[in-house]
């Protein structure tokens, strides 16, 4: 494999860029495409990391990961958007400019935190931990600040990617069964969320989650 260190850093940079894109985009299908890109990038990671486990296992893992995150999720979400003639703009609570600033802030914070996590940080993957944390924070921010159900699903996918990268960086060789279990869970979660979102849009003929607040005290 080519010098994995440089490649890893490139992938990390790509990951961070997709985060910022997500925060900035105004249209939902643009966001979906950005998440697809991020899925592909994250899918590549096991290949780069390599680790001790045999090649066939890593290859299988990347194939499945990229397949699900890169291809299945986007098509499903865009089909959902097409079925529901809901207004496509993303009307976030927080303006785009501010959210990007917050995204950068998240990256700074995750850098500071990863420097503090002394024992975990092998020289090699310091970058990856901070990228994972940043993606995690961006995912959370997306869920909290977006109004549409679909954008919350996207936020959840970004969150999963963040956790996945963080896991790869810190642990490296998690047993295969667990790896597959996690992927499968992520897939089923998104699948069910989209079905729920579909039901909501059909029932309420709008996708604004923040209007769903009749159950309160």
């Amino acid at each position, binding site marked *: 494999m080519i010098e994995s260190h440089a490649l890893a850093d490139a992938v990390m940079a790509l990951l961070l860029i997709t985060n910022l894109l997500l925060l900035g985009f105004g249209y939902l299908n643009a966001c979906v495409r950005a998440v697809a890109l991020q899925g592909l990038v994250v899918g590549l990671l096991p290949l780069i990391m390599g680790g001790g486990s045999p090649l066939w296992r890593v290859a299988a893992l990347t194939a499945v990961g990229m397949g699900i995150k890169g291809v299945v999720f986007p098509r499903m979400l865009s089909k959902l958007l097409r079925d529901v003639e809901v207004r496509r703009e993303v009307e976030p609570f927080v303006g785009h400019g501010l959210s990007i600033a917050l995204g950068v802030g998240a990256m700074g914070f995750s850098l500071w935190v990863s420097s503090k996590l002394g024992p975990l940080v092998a020289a090699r993957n310091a970058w990856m931990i901070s990228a994972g944390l940043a993606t995690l924070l961006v995912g959370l921010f997306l*869920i909290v600040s977006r109004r549409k159900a679909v954008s919350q699903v996207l936020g959840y996918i970004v969150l999963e990617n963040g956790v996945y990268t963080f896991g790869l960086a810190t642990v490296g060789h998690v047993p295969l069964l*667990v790896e597959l279990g*996690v992927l*499968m869970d992520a897939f*089923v979660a998104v699948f*069910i969320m989209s079905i*729920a979102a579909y039901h909501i849009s059909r029932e309420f003929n709008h996708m604004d989650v923040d209007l*769903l607040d009749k159950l309160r005290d």
Partner: protein
Amino acid sequence: MTAKAFIRVARWGGITLAALAAAAACVVLRRGPVLFADGWFALDALSAFHLGVLALVFGSASWFAEPYFEGTLTPSQARRFAALWFGAFCAMVLVLCCGNLGLMWVGIEATTLLTAFLICTHVTPLSLEATWKYLVVCSVGVAFAFMGTLLVAASAHGLQLDASSTLLWTQLRERAVFLHPGTMKLAFLFLLVGYGTKAGLAPLHGWLPDAHSQAPAPVSALFSGFMLNASFYCLLRILPIAEAATGNVGWARGLLVFFGLASIVVAACFIVFQHDSKRLLAYHSVEHLGIIALAAGLGGLGTFAALWHTLNHALCKALAFFCAGRLGQAYGSHDLRRMAGALRAGRLWAAAFFASLLALIGVAPFAIFMSELQILRAAAERRAFIAMAVFLLGVSVVFVGALKHALVMAWGEPVQRPEPEKESVGTHVLVWGMLGMLLVLGLWLPTPLSDAMRAAAGIVEGRP
């Protein structure tokens, strides 16, 4: 197949599954832990006890499902309900019997996903809203739990465990002392927030009242009865490892006590104003989970009392939700003021609901008073006087608030005449049986049960 057939399948299937689980639990409790696939799937005293509680709750919920869903479901809804009903059971059994923390996480995630659509069996705007909240909040919470699991694996980095056994619970517990304390603390925090969300501990309980009040009665009975305890079971698994890793100074226990007290206080604040019967019971679940967390946090006699309280609470809450469900159907609304004077009409469900509410708020002869007494004793032994004071204050406020509503429901001025109910003998037996068990458990603890609980508490305490 008609809706009725599906529901009957769900009922009898559920009961047989529950019987199987109960049998497995008894076997394990009598003959000691059972391991297969070298530790990946293990059944020891703690999981066997929880399996028994699951069997009880699931069996009674399944039995009750048929009279509850009588003619209210379309065939497709019934089919989906039956499928998801068995799916949820299998997911919970998976959680209980897997020895690998990663797989346990997968099991918890599976319970979330499988039960999501159980909430909106009757598709209404409110139930959809509840489902969405449940899905989003729990998935985010469980993602944090996954972060925690990874951090646990990371903290075991120094032990050079081979790939397949990094997350094995048995391995981790033996080598807990060598785990890296800093990472383990971080891991415990993530796990506490993750599984705490699913268990409905205080600041993380947002989804619980909505999910429980919209779900149909058997589903919310299963939720409150066992699902909250399932995720708390995971916390109980991790507690000995975290305690050993952080040098047994009670760091992890202190956190549990804090979250327990927070839950009791928050629940107390909301119970005083709740007029909706199901939301009232949901907040009671938050309170009782808080009590269980407090007891587990106190350790020593507290852990034993926590397990006993789990059993009592599961029984009582399941019964309470059945009654709330049926009364809601009879009166057409869950508002306690609309159900005023229910007891006066001499209804079975109203009497059972009043008795279970009294039991829930800790009136004497019932079991919950006795387990709270043991928890107070554990707190006294550990000199946690502030915890005792806050606990007593919280429980008293809950008593005052809930009793006011219960009295209105039982003997208030009847606002609406419900149509007469005709209940099968089986349901009568079920209801009075559960109430009888609560009363008996309060006065006499059979020795096999107390030995099982003592063994399970031993595991949580870290003794082999």
